[in-house]
Structure formats: structure tokens, C-alpha cells
């Protein structure tokens, strides 16, 4: 399984902080399974995806294996 972590407003939109999707998981699989408006925002420039603690330069290159953690990162608000 791949653990999906929702941050910020994505957690509100998803109605949860995290859930599990079946492994392996690529960009298409992810975009299909998350809430449509999360997928839409993830297609934009300001939202990011991290895989096991590393922010992906190219979200579409996502390739998560069993045991991985994928975090869905809305645009950061600064600190």
C-alpha cells in the first residue's frame, strides 16, 4: 500500500489527513483516486507532491511503491 498524506486545505477537501492507495501508484492513478478538485490543483504549478520526503520536480514522474509515503502539498502559505 502507498500512504497518501493530505496537507493544508487538501485535508479539508479530502475529509481526512491520510489514507492508503494500492501500490504501485503513478501520477495517473493518483489523479484518478483523489478528490477531483485536489487533482485539479495538483495539475497547477503551485501545488507539489513529495515521495518519501523528496519533493518531485516533475509530478507526472511519480512512481510510488509498496510502503511509500506520498504527500499532497497545496501552495505553501509561508511561515
Amino acid at each position, binding site marked *: 500500500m502507498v500512504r497518501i*498524506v493530505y*496537507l*493544508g*486545505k487538501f*485535508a*479539508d477537501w479530502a475529509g481526512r489527513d491520510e489514507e492508503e492507495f494500492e501500490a504501485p501508484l503513478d501520477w495517473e492513478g493518483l489523479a484518478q483516486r483523489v478528490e477531483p478538485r485536489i487533482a485539479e490543483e495538483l495539475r497547477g504549478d*503551485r501545488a507539489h507532491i*513529495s515521495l*518519501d*520526503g523528496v*519533493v518531485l520536480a516533475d509530478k507526472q514522474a511519480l512512481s510510488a511503491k509498496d510502503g511509500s*509515503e506520498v*504527500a499532497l*502539498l*497545496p*501552495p*505553501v*502559505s*509561508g*511561515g
Partner: protein
Amino acid sequence: MLDKGLSVGEAQAAFSNINRLSGGIASFLGKVRDDGETQALELTHYAPLTEPAIRELAQEALSRFALDGVLVWHRIGVMTRGQPIVLVMAAAPHRRAAFDAVDFLMDHLKSASWLWKREKRGGTWEWIEPRAEDRLDLSRWT
């Protein structure tokens, strides 16, 4: 990253004690300002990103300036006005290095910070989008 109130005094005393033979200690404490509207703010982070990023930033400050030590604390969770958000300290033999390190850490802390903020106004929580936020942050820290 701390999810409880910063005990700023204790941190400063401890840091000063650890670095008691340093020539000087510069510090900056950033707090929640009172904008007259915001009742509370909440910062959420993603530890697998923020923790290594902040450690790396502290390490970079140590290698870039002639320092005896640095401290970088950032609050997460719910805060109200007047409460500390960030505390950065640098101990060094020379004032200039201590000052420059604190400045550097403050300048780069935001880019190392994967933080999401929501604010409570009129009893309602709202997520802060970066466009509006940039302005708010600049006015808070810059």
C-alpha cells in the same frame, strides 16, 4: 518545529549558557502581530520535509559564518496574537557573524518551510493562499 508554545526565555537562557564563552549572541523573535481581525492562526507542516530542510539550513549557516552555534525554532499549531512563531539565535566570536547568520536564517526559513496556514476571523477558519499571504508575511517578518 514545535507544536507547543515556545518557552522563549528558557530557550534563550539555555542557548546562552551552552555558548557562554562566545563573544556575542544575536537573536530574532518573530511573533503573531495583532492585525485587529485575526483571532487565531494555525500552522500545519509536513515533518518529513520541514525537519531536514531546517536542519540543512542551520548547517549551511554554520558553514557559511564563523559561528559557535545556532538555534532555529518554528512554532506550528494554533497561535494567538503576541505568541512567538519563530526564534532564531546565533552565537559567534564576532557580532557581525552572529547578526548576519540570524539575518540569513530568517531570510531562508520561509523557503525551507513547508507550512500551511489558516486564520480564524469572525469565528471562521480560512486557509491562507500564498498570494495574499506573501504580503502578510512580508509585513510580519521583513
